[in-house]
């Protein structure tokens, strides 16, 4: 019997073998990697701003945080001054903005009435800007005092802030260019990235807060609920408080600070959840217990973990040179009851006057 005859009689089987081999060989050949280019509907939800820059201005290439644009003025002595574009997704009060820069310039905290003399309205193009000029107190070391020229534009529920900070002479010299620059701007703020100064307040406040006497070595002030009592003192703690109930359950609340980031968020969260017998998490599952939370106007974290019997709630704030931890730990059901009070406590934290933290 010849091979050809054999194939003829068992065609189906050999067809199957051949096609399987072909399929395998075809798919085994890996696709060659190449650079791809494609177009999609815009997914970018950050700010987009376009402008026409005066000839003697330069752009700072790095953008970070809320800045949508950053510039300097080219001078013979090198780049000078800071000009920025900061979009806020929500309406921000002029007083808040003035206080952001006023403290840097040595002004006391503004109120609406004390700020009123500083605020003007200026029409540039078809838009009305709020216009504030804050001059710093004279520094003998400087030939010209620092000046913050702040232009605020409010449109469609958004606020755009254009700060121009330089010495007074430079601000005066470049004010025309600054006006032309503002007139040339096209502005679109971030879709989903609100820049929020503070987190929303808790819905239900269970107890009336009382201002607490801030510890001497704390740069913060805060309010504590009336149900909280002084707790055990320790040299490690800036403040120590406790809550107990009729069943003998207790919560320990502490405020501590450490230099540096003491291992960072992950290490500290794992340490705390370990104290209530929960297994450690890795970086990618950290969000199981952590959410972003503003503390005293800074970006911080709120940690919430419940073990079988105990729970831990905490606020963590990592500043440039130090870390602050506001922690509640103890009986789970009591912690659940006190959660709103604890969040209210975190919201109440603000810098003690004259001790702005960065």
């Amino acid at each position, binding site marked *: 019997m010849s091979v050809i005859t054999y194939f003829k009689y068992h065609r189906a089987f050999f067809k199957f073998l051949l096609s399987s081999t072909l399929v395998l060989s075809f798919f085994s050949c890996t696709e060659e990697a190449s650079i791809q*280019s494609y177009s999609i509907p815009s997914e970018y939800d950050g700010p*987009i701003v376009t402008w026409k820059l005066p000839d003697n201005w330069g752009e700072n290439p790095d953008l970070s945080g809320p800045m949508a644009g950053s510039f300097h003025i080219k001078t013979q002595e090198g780049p000078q001054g800071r000009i920025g574009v900061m979009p806020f997704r929500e309406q921000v009060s002029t007083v808040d903005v003035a206080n952001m820069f006023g403290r840097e310039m040595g002004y006391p905290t503004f109120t609406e009435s004390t700020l009123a003399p500083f605020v003007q309205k200026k029409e540039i193009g078809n838009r009305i800007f709020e216009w504030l000029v804050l001059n710093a107190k004279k520094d003998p070391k400087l030939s010209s005092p620092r000046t913050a020229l702040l232009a605020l534009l409010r449109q469609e529920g958004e606020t755009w802030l254009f700060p121009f900070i330089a010495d007074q002479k430079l601000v005066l010299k470049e004010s025309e260019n600054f006006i032309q620059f503002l007139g040339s701007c096209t502005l679109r703020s971030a879709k989903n990235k609100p820049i929020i100064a503070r987190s929303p307040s808790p819905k239900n406040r269970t107890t009336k807060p009382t201002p607490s006497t801030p510890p001497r070595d704390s740069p913060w002030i805060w309010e504590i609920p009336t149900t909280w009592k002084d707790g055990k003192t320790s040299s490690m703690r800036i403040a120590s408080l406790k809550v107990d109930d009729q069943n003998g359950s207790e919560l320990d609340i502490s405020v501590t600070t450490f230099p540096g980031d003491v291992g960072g968020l992950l290490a500290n969260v794992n340490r705390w959840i370990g104290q209530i017998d929960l297994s450690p998490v890795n970086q990618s*599952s950290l969000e199981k217990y952590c959410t972003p939370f503003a503390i005293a106007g800074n970006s911080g974290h709120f940690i919430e973990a419940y073990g079988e019997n105990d729970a831990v709630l905490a606020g963590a704030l990592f500043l440039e040179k130090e870390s602050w931890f506001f922690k509640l730990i103890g009986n789970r059901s009591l912690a659940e009851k006190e959660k709103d009070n604890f969040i209210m406590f975190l919201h109440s934290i603000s810098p003690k006057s004259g001790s702005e933290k960065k």
Partner: protein
Amino acid sequence: MNENKKKNTLGQRRKDFNFLIPFASLRLTITLLSLSMILIFVATLEQVRIGIRGALAEYFESFYGIWYYPEKFWGSEYLQDIPLPIPGGYLLGGLLIINLTAAYIVRFQWTLKKAGIQLIHLGIILLLIGQLTTQAIQEESRMQINKGEKSNFIERFHGVELALRDVTDPAKEQVITVPQKILENGGTLTDKSLPFTIKVHHFGVNCDFDSVDPNKPKSKIVEFVNRGVGKSANLNIIEKEEDFSSDGANFGYLVLELLDQGKSLGQWLTIAHPAGNEVWTKLSPKLADLSFQSIRHKGKLWGITLRQQREYLPFAIELLDIENEYYQGTEIPFNFESDINLHLEGNQTRRALVYMNTPLRHGGLTFYQYQMNDAANYSVFQVINNPSWLVPYIACILVSIGMLWQFSFHLVKFLRKNSKSPANA
């Protein structure tokens, strides 16, 4: 006719294909099956050490693997340093296909009486070929959707890409992606749609990263990074081996330099988060920009990011609601359920429920319920693209028919014989 029958006999086939006789040996079948059992045993042990993906890559998706005697076993002090070669899945699977095919030709009788045996073996051959095909072409990805939102792309579990996005136009964005294979090769990359040249300085599939004190020394990988988050957060990188374990998180990293007509624009560090770059924003404001490091260049706003390799789909999935249930008193999931709307072309929609073992199949993709976070209101689907997914089903049907045929044949024969026996007469 008789001539044809003669040509079809086993003896004739053995004569024509005598070179196949050694491959059709039953001993070879038994040996291969025994070795397969050893392979499965070794891979199961190794799975504890290197994870499912590691064991698959080392032992099943290869021709051979090297095994070291486990430290915790008896006599490990003498045996643990001896490398033991173990035949891999490709070798055993390939040999089994040859063995079964050869047996089909030179050992089996092609009669109606033995048709069941032939079907069973045909099914097994198909199963083996199907598995090899699956390993060669299957792609696994993930799709994460927040409740109330839509998604139209999937991201590979393994493999990253550098994405450069021109987001200047508010309506649409231009995306240029460089796949991992090219990044691994390093060098200088250009593309006609890019206004700058990319120079790859360092690329790795996994790393440890940390924000360090500016006075402390950093690794050589990041010593020249002078732009973006790498600089602002003063990030240090320590290279790590790829983690194959099931809960292993691989943070791919890339240090790249952008050049415009030979002039350096700076060096950036970018890191891919294995759970998607949106997580950076939640982790820390310092690291938030790792999801989009912006560069303004020649009047355009560009963003660079290293992300899990992404594929856009011609349809979108909207997550309407999620529900998860646990076994009482435990954290062991009982059921995860996603209520979704499938948005097709032409404004057509299809409502579906995706839950454990009940995936959604659409457009050649299968969406399995994979993860869920009730607190953060999102659901994650494991998305499988396997064009040969039907092969195992067909193979199993063939084996079932073959077994049914074979058993029925013998049963009928037995019953006939029984009815003719003197006792029943």
